[in-house]
């Protein structure tokens, strides 16, 4: 029954990692243009994207 002593922290850490990843994606503008992202994948660009 003492397994949870390390299982619970692991579960919480994983959850926090997911939350942090989402926050990062949000602040780096990946949710700004959902429609555009869906379409862009269909177009090949010879040059790397310049932003």
């Amino acid at each position, binding site marked *: *029954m003492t397994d*949870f002593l390390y299982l*619970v922290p692991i*579960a*919480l850490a994983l*959850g*926090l990692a*997911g*939350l942090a990843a*989402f*926050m990062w994606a*949000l602040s780096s503008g990946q*949710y*700004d*243009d*959902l*429609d*555009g992202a*869906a*379409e*862009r994948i*269909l*177009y090949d660009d010879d040059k790397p994207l*310049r*932003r």
Partner: protein
Amino acid sequence: MSCCAPGSDGMIGPGYQARQDAEVLLASRLIEPGLRQTDLSVPSVHCGACVHRVESALSALPGVLAARVNLSSRHATVRWTDAASPPPFIAALQAIGYDAHLYDIKADDKDAALQELIRALAVAGFAASNIMLLSVSVWAGADAATRDLFHWLSALIALPVLAYSGRVFFRSAWNALRHGRTNMDVPISIGVLLAFGMSLYETAHHGAHAYFDASVSLLFFLLIGRTLDHMMRERARTAVKGLARLASRGALVLHPDGTRVYLPVGEIEVGMTIMLAAGERVPVDARVISGRSDIDLSLLTGESEPVPVRDGTLLQAGTLNLSGPLTIVATAVARESFLAEMMRLMEAAESGRSTYRRIADRASRLYAPVVHTVALLTCIGWLVVTGDLHRAITVAIAVLIITCPCALGLAVPMVQVMAARRLFERGMLLKDGAALERLAEIDAVVFDKTGTLTLGQPCLRNSATIDPAALQVAAALAAHSRHPYSRALAMAAPANAIVLDATTVAELPGAGMEAQIEDHTFRLGRADWALDISERHEKSAPPATVVLACDGELVAEFDFEDRLRDGAREAVATLARDGLQIEILSGDRDDAVRRIADGVGVAYTAGVSPGGKVARIEAITAAGRKVLMVGDGLNDAPALAAAHASIAPASAADIGRNAADLVFLHENLQAVPQAITIAREAARLVQQNLWLAVIYNVLAVPVAVLGYVTPLVAAVAMSLSSLIVIANALRLRDGGRTARVNRPAWRSTAQPMVGRSA
């Protein structure tokens, strides 16, 4: 684009480019030395191929460092090296078939409120799932020591989350309380905070029941509703902002020493001389000192025919100069111009309108006192019966938790989001949920004429009876002019077989076009100018007639009319069948309004001033009716603000679109009855959902009052009630499926102006 399609001011005339450069420069911002950024609105971008074409075209321009299109908001961001003149963005896009407009940078600030809501939602979601996992193991029968540990862990997660995600509600509740009001957020905040406080107390005293999961998942559910509500409004707002802007940003001012400077509208002073090219809008109220031209007043007064102007004529800000360059002198500064006057009228009208309280707020005004009284009585009752203060408070708080308006907070926004989506699919943009509630209540409709019932652009009426050869000559001449009649002619002709060299065609403002073709002088324009005196006797031509003459002899006559919008008749008939009181208020001349009013069979008033429209709407309101105003012009804006609900077409003037609750993008006027139907259906579902919430409480409150509510019961009951109201809200889509079977034909043929929904 079909004949008479709305929009498109953007024809390029001589001398227009230099001004546009200055305007682009004015609208761009310096992001670092030598690097500028310009935001363009490109409303017709609607797929990946468009994104690719627009980005390639912009990147290929000299000086452009990067171009990126945002497909969701349909605008392009261009970064370019600061140079004397900006790259020709708009011309480059027009060359590949996209209309582009400068986008207001001020409006482009990232939506901070939405960001905050999404972050709060993410944090609450994380906390709710993790606390729920811990709670499940407690409910599964953890021993006392483990239970206490898990409760402490839950408290540790819940405290920062309440502080971070709960802010949204606490702030709004505090604001309401401070002003002596109450709203939905007050019972929410009280419930959440008390649940947390009691759980903390229980945990500290090794109690068996803690409601951390309830208080956090409550926040999570409510934040979902709040975020959906906000996203719906924001989407419509950006789409509306992305449409063409009509007010001029600046003007070319001629200083006494002969220098010419492009000044922003706000810096133009009385007495300044302004050079106004054909195709530009008048920036401030002004008087013409030289030049002749035709002025399009349709957005201001509702008058459908252009008015010839010459030196001495007074111009109102916002009117469009059609045919010739003018030199004008400013007679008022921007803040005293016609446009500003309309803004003041609008504000007055808005403050006169009784403030509308949203259904959710009205429900909570009843709800909060009832719930709090029940909780208080429960506490007193248990205290009297058992004498156990701790027990009494625990039960009272359980009552508050179980009645916390979780379902209520979701019931209304869910329905409104679904309704907004259905409206979006039909090309209608809804400003906010309150607008939908008001739209469902209306029982009278007032239409504007020009640009609303009609398209506001003339169409050739008698094309069938005209010799095709004559029509071709006329179209070739007309192709060189910006006058609405000329554009209608150019559209009406089949493929232009004849192309005239621009140097052989002359436009005489206020009169017409003249060209030399094979030793003959062709004139297209007013009869008294184009024809020899001997030819003129026949009849006094109505003003909406243009003739084509060859060496002074009549070749053909062209009749124009402002065409009714598609579906105008059907829309009015549908509304009348629904028992709504319908009338037309127009600023146009009596005969023009009568023709249209007779066409759709409605009572009308012609020659109404903007203030008159407001007065009429107030009169109808005073008679106990709730008015829907449908209008597009600047002159309609105050009326749009005064009415109970308002709808504007996408071709409307800026401030009209901003004042309206709903903007429809397609040409077809059937949008109006459709919007009302959807609004009423949504209102019905909202009512059902509120009743569901009431039934839930009737069932749950006795259980809670009797003290049978454990954290497990609370979690199940709350989730279940939320799921039920969400499922009920989704039925609005099912209703859409049956309606789509007899979908009107225009949906498949009409050109989407803002395009596909996502």
